[in-house]
C-alpha cells in the first residue's frame, strides 16, 4: 500500500543534506522521472520544449497522488517515502527529501494532474509557490506534472544556463541514464515534438541498445557478479573505446551515481587493454543492501557513501575483470576492393548520441589507401561483428608462418588471424609477471621475489643522474621484489647484479635506465607502479618487432597468447591480433556466402 505524504518533523528534515536541487532543466527532468519510477510507473512520457525553459511535461502511469494530498506534495519536506530518521539509514526509493516538487514550484508554474487507479482525477496549479487553481478533472490513471516558465522569477539562474543545445543534451542524457538504470520502464522522450529517445521497456540489453545504438551495444560484455554486492550491467569490449570518460554510467540500486573510486576500479580493470587517452563505456549497476549505502550526502542524491567502500571496489573490479577476460580480438575490415581502399578499423562504434557531449575522436585504426587514390580513403561501414568471438575461441590457433620477419599469420576456426609478435609476446610476459608478482605479494611490499630473478655473472655498472638515484632510493624495496638486484656503487653509479628472468636476455643497462625513468617521484599506489614496471620488463623481454621467429617459437607464442586473459591487446592497449573472418573475406572477394 502506498504511504501517505507527510511533513517530515524538523529533526528529520534537518538531517537531510541541504542545498538547491533545481539548478537547470535537466535536474527538473531527473527529479520528475525519479518520482514516476518511485510510483512504479511502467510507462513514462517526457516532453520538452524550448530546452526545458518553456515547458517540461512528465507523464506516468504510476500509483498516483490522492487528490487531498496534492497541496502537500508541493510542500517543502513533505514525502511519502520516509517517515523517520531511521528510514534515512536504508533508503530504497530514488526520492526521500520531499523537496523536489516544492523547489520546482517555487521557480516555475507547475500543474499536477493525478488520478489513483480507483478514484477520479484531480488537478493543482501553482506558480511561484502560490496556488492558482485546484479541483477535479478527468484524467487517465497516473500522474502528469507539467512545468512551465522555469526560472521566470530567478533571472540569475536563467542567465547561468548553457546554450539551448547543451541544456537539451543534458536533459536527454538525464532521461537516458534513467532508462539505463530502470530498464523495465518504457520511456519516450520528445524534444520539441520530435522523438529523441525511445526505450521499449524490457531487459537491460534493450535499454542499452536504445541508449547507445545497436552497434555500440553489440560491443558490450555483460557483467555478472553476484553476491552481497551484486554487479550487473555491461561494459565495452577493449577493442571498442571512446574519446571521453563520460560514456561510463555507474548506478547503485537503480540510482545513477558519481563515484571516483568506482570509476577508478573500472579503469583499473581496463589497464593495459586500451590505448592511451581512450575510455570504456557502458553501465556498471550495483545492487547492495540499502543499509550499506548512504545517499543522503548531497541534494542531487548523486553522491553516495558506502559503509564498506573497499568491498564494493573489489566487487566491481572482479566483475569487470571476469567480463574482460572474454574480450574479443580486433577485427580487420577490408573495404570494397573495387573501390581500391582497404580500411583497418579498430572497431570504433558509431557515436553514443546521449552519453557523449563531445563527439568521439576519429577511429584510431590505420587507414591504408591503395596507390592512385591520392592517399585518401573512404571508411567503410563496420560490418556486423557479432560473430567474432573471444580470443579463446580462436583456439586452436595454428601458425602458418611469418611475413617479412614481422607479422605472424595464423589459422583459426574463425578465419585468418594476423599477429604482431612483439605485442603478443609483451602481453604474455606482462600477464605472467603480474600473476607471479601477485602470488609473491610484491605490491604489498613482501620481500619475496616474484617471477624469478636471474643473477648476473658479470654485474653491470650503470651511470645514473641524481633524479634517477632518488627514485631508486624511494622504491628500492619494490624494485628488489620485482627481481632487480640493484645497489648504490659509488657516486652516480648503481651496480646491477640481477634482473627479472623475463627480461634476462636483453640489454641490462638500458633496462635499468628505463626502470628508473618509470619509477615516479611521487607516492602513487603500488599496484599502479607494479603495472608500469611489468609493462616495462615485458617490453624488454619480448621478441623485438622484426626479429625472425622459428616455426616452433611462433606456435608456442600463439599457444601462450590464447591462454592469456585480455590477450587481445598489448600492455599499452594496442591490438595483438587482427581477425580476418570468412564473412569479411567473402565480402571482399565478392564470393557469395
Amino acid at each position, binding site marked *: 500500500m502506498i504511504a501517505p505524504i507527510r511533513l517530515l518533523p524538523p529533526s528529520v528534515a534537518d538531517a537531510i543534506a541541504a542545498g538547491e536541487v533545481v539548478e537547470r532543466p535537466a535536474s527538473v527532468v531527473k527529479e520528475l522521472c525519479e518520482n514516476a519510477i518511485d510510483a512504479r510507473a511502467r510507462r513514462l512520457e517526457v516532453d520538452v520544449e524550448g530546452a526545458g525553459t518553456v515547458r517540461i511535461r512528465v507523464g506516468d502511469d504510476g500509483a498516483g497522488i490522492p487528490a487531498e494530498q496534492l497541496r502537500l506534495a508541493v510542500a517543502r519536506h513533505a514525502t511519502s517515502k520516509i517517515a523517520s530518521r531511521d528510514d534515512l539509514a536504508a533508503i530504497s526509493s530514488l526520492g526521500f527529501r520531499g523537496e523536489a516538487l516544492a523547489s520546482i514550484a517555487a521557480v516555475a508554474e507547475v500543474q499536477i494532474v493525478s488520478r489513483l487507479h480507483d478514484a477520479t482525477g484531480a488537478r493543482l496549479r501553482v506558480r511561484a509557490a502560490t496556488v492558482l487553481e485546484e479541483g477535479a478533472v478527468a484524467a487517465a490513471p497516473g500522474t502528469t506534472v507539467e512545468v512551465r516558465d522555469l526560472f521566470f522569477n530567478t533571472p540569475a539562474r536563467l542567465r547561468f544556463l548553457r546554450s539551448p543545445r547543451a541544456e537539451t543534451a543534458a536533459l536527454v542524457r538525464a532521461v537516458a541514464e534513467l532508462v539505463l538504470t530502470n530498464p523495465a520502464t518504457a520511456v519516450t522522450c520528445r524534444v520539441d515534438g520530435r522523438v529523441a529517445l525511445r526505450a521499449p521497456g524490457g531487459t537491460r540489453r534493450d535499454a542499452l541498445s536504445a541508449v547507445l545504438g545497436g552497434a555500440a551495444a553489440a560491443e558490450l560484455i555483460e557483467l555478472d557478479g553476484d553476491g552481497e554486492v551484486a554487479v550487473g550491467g555491461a561494459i565495452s569490449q577493449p577493442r571498442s573505446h571512446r574519446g571521453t570518460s563520460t560514456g561510463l554510467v555507474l548506478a547503485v540500486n537503480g540510482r545513477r551515481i558519481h563515484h571516483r573510486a568506482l570509476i577508478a576500479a573500472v579503469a583499473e580493470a581496463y589497464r593495459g587493454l586500451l590505448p592511451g587517452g581512450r575510455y570504456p563505456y557502458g553501465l556498471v549497476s550495483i545492487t547492495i543492501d540499502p543499509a550499506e549505502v548512504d545517499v543522503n550526502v548531497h541534494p542531487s542524491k548523486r553522491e553516495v557513501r558506502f559503509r564498506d567502500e573497499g568491498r564494493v571496489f573489489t566487487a566491481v573490479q572482479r566483475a569487470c575483470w571476469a567480463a574482460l577476460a572474454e574480450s574479443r580480438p580486433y577485427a580487420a575490415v577490408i573495404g570494397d576492393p573495387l573501390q581500391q581502399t582497404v580500411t583497418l578499423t579498430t572497431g570504433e562504434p558509431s557515436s553514443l548520441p546521449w552519453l557523449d557531449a563531445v563527439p568521439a575522436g576519429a577511429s584510431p585504426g590505420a587507414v591504408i589507401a591503395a596507390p592512385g587514390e591520392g592517399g585518401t580513403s573512404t571508411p567503410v561501414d563496420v560490418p556486423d561483428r557479432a560473430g567474432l568471438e573471444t580470443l579463446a575461441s580462436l583456439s586452436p590457433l595454428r601458425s602458418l608462418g611469418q611475413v617479412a620477419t614481422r607479422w605472424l599469420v595464423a589459422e583459426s576456426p574463425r578465419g585468418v588471424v594476423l599477429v604482431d609478435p612483439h605485442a603478443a609476446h609483451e602481453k*604474455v*610476459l606482462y600477464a*605472467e*609477471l603480474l*600473476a*607471479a608478482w601477485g*602470488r*609473491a605479494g610484491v605490491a604489498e611490499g613482501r620481500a*619475496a*621475489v*616474484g*617471477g*624469478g*630473478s*636471474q*643473477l*648476473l*655473472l*658479470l654485474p*653491470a655498472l650503470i651511470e645514473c643522474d641524481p633524479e634517477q638515484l632518488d627514485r631508486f632510493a624511494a622504491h628500492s624495496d619494490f624494485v628488489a621484489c620485482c*627481481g632487480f*638486484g640493484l645497489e648504490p656503487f659509488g657516486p652516480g653509479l648503481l651496480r646491477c647484479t*640481477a634482473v627479472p*628472468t*623475463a627480461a*634476462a*636476455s*636483453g*640489454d*641490462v*643497462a*638500458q633496462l635499468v635506465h628505463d626502470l628508473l625513468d618509470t619509477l615516479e617521484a611521487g607516492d602513487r599506489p603500488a599496484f599502479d607502479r607494479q603495472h608500469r614496471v611489468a609493462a616495462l620488463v615485458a617490453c624488454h*623481454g619480448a621478441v623485438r618487432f622484426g626479429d625472425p621467429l622459428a616455426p616452433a617459437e611462433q606456435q608456442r607464442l600463439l599457444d601462450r597468447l590464447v591462454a592469456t586473459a585480455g590477450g587481445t591487446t598489448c600492455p599499452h592497449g594496442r591490438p595483438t591480433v587482427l581477425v580476418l573472418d570468412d564473412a569479411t573475406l567473402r565480402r571482399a572477394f565478392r564470393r557469395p556466402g
Partner: protein
Amino acid sequence: MKCTVSSSALSSSLSLVSRAVSPRSTLPILGNVLVETGDEGLRLTATNLDLTISVAVPAEVASEGRTTIPARLLTEYVGSLLDAPCTLELNPSTQVLRLVCGIHRTNIHGIDAIEFPPLPPRDTGAGIEVDGPALAAAVTQTAMAASGDEARPVLTGVLVQFDADRLTLVATDGHRLAVKTLEVAGGGEDAPTGSIIVPARHLTEVARAITPARPVVRVAVSPSRNQVFFTMPDLEISSRLIEGTYPNYAQVIPGESTTTVTLPTSALLRETRTVSVLAKDAANVVRLRTGDGTLTLLAQTAEVGDDEAPLEASVNGDDLHIAFNARYVLDALAAVDSDQVQLSFNGPLSPGVIRPVGTDDYLCIIMPVRVPM
C-alpha cells in the same frame, strides 16, 4: 670459362658457401656466389662482408674465367640434379652461365665478377694447426653460451686465446660462461699470440664445415688483427673480428665449493629435459635440491602443474636448494662429453659449475635464478 665438375661435389660445396650469403642483403651482388677457375679446379666464394667462405671443387678446367651467379637459385638447381658430370660454360659478353648435365641444358644469368666485393687478403701463412674435430667440438661446447643480444657486441663473440701450447675458447652472455681448453702443437715463432673475439655465429660455421676429410684446421690472424682465417685443405673461412675488451672471465670462476654432486651425465640431461616441460612460464626455472645420496629436480608453473624427480647421485657437502634457467642447464649438460658430470655450488646465490669428470679442460658456469622457494 669452361670446366667440368661432378654435380654432387658442386652441390655440397654450394651449400657450404651459401651459409655466407645474406638472404636479405640490400646489395644484390651479395646474394651471388663467385664462381671462378683456379689452380685447384673450380673455386666458389660467398661473402656477407663479415664472413667469407671459399671452397675449391675438383674440376677439369678447359678455359679460365669467373662470374657470379645467384646463390640460392644455383644451390637449389644443382641440388636437384642427378649425380652426373656437369659442364659449366660462361658467355663472357652476356654473363650467361650454361650448365649441361644429364638431359638438362640450362642457362642462368649472372652478374660480372668485377662487381663482387674485394675479398680479404688470404692467410699469409702465420698460424697454428689445430685438430679439426677437436676444434669443432670446442666450438659447440662454448658458442652456445655466447649472447644473442647485439647491445653488448663483445658478448656475441667467442674469446679465442692463444698460448704457447694451448688454445682457450670462452663465451658468456652474462648469465653463464663456458671455457674450453685445447692442446695444440707449438706454433713456431710467428704463431698468433694474445686473444681475439670471433663472432660466435661464424665460429659455428667453421665447426659445421669440419669433416673427417678436413682433419686439420689452420688458424691465423691477419697482421692488422681485424680478420681471422680458418684454413682447411680445400676450404677457407675468414671472419671479421669483434673489437672491444672481453670481460675478465677468470675472476668469476669459483675456486672452492661447499656442495658437490656427481652423477651420470645422460641421466641428468634426460631428467632435466623432462622436468623442464613443467617449467613453462617466462622464467623457465628448474630447481635442484641436494639430499642424502640424491639430487632432486623440481619444476613448477602456477596453474599448469609441477614435477619432482629424485636422482641417485654422490653428494658431498652442505644441503642446497638452488634454481636455474632450465635452458642453461640443458645447454651445459649437452656440452659435457664425459659419462659422469660434476656439479659444484657455493650456496643458492652463487654461480654453479658444471664440468666433466675425468678431464679438466672444460667447465660451464651458470648463475642461479632467485625464486620464492
